[in-house]
């Protein structure tokens, strides 16, 4: 199980890094945007997707709100444990959730977005005498990132409440 999980993380991480690289190339070279805007766009896209995928996994696989959500004061958002699911089903479901989270969240989206390129580009902007770029980059990434996560989560919730799967 741990090896399978590590494999999922590695496969997702490699794919996410290639995806990030291709998207940055597309935005900065083909579309002609500045590099920091391209990195910011990829980061914000990843934030939106992580909100969506997180909530999707929680609603599809989790019944008890384990994982990160345990620490939250508003954990009553999640539905209670399904009384009809047996312990074995629950265990299998938890395992599936862990694998999907390892591939999608830790691997793919975690590697697609990057904090170090963001810091490096801001640092280079400051160094080359354009601090306004750094300010736009920092404030925009952090604030719009929060909003993007919230948007992704509410979209996943909306999808779960309206579709009947």
């Amino acid at each position, binding site marked *: 199980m741990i090896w399978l*999980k*590590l494999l999922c*993380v*590695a*496969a*997702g*991480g*490699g*794919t*996410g*890094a*290639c995806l*990030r*690289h*291709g998207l*940055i*190339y597309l935005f*900065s*070279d083909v579309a002609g945007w500045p*590099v920091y805007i*391209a990195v910011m766009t990829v*980061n914000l896209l*990843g*934030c939106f*997707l*992580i909100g969506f995928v*997180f909530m999707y996994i929680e609603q599809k696989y989790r019944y008890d709100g384990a994982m*990160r959500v345990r*620490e939250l*004061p*508003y954990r009553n958002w999640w539905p209670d444990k399904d009384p009809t699911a047996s312990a074995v089903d629950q265990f299998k479901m938890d395992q599936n959730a862990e694998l999907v989270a*390892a591939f999608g*969240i*830790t*691997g793919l*989206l*975690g*590697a*697609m*977005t*990057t*904090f*170090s*390129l*963001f*810091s*490096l580009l*801001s*640092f*280079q902007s*400051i160094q080359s005498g354009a601090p306004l770029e750094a300010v736009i980059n*920092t404030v925009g*990434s*952090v604030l719009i*990132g*929060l909003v*993007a*996560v*919230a948007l992704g*989560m509410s979209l996943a919730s909306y999808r779960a409440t309206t579709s009947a799967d």
Partner: protein
Amino acid sequence: MVFLVAYLCVFLGGALGALSRFTVQELFGRWTRLPGWIAILSVNILGCFAIGMCSAWLQGLEASLQFEHLSPLRRYIESQTDDHGISLLVVGFSGAFTTFSTFSLDNFFLFHGRRGWLVFNIIFSVVIGYLSVWLGWTMGQGF
């Protein structure tokens, strides 16, 4: 061909980076009782140090080989040259080791739970991230 090798390097670096981040996260959860966002915070700061150091080191390597004096990362991204050191270490490893999406997800949870720690997380990440890029950059120039 060069194109394929570059993407292979990014893939390898990305897989290694994601594995390292996952390991750090798991060990944090197993060895300490700190909340999960502290693990992401330290991973991001370590990765910022690594990217500063690697890009300064590779830039110094290029400067010593009498190439044009421009940031290799910027030139790499803008023209996708065949600098496999950059694609492996900077874009692949350091890029995938750090994460912005999980940082934002943690920020979202902290926003709903503990706003004091949200402010701490954002300011500490950004300020110490820049400082560690600078520190790595200065140290990398020594090599």
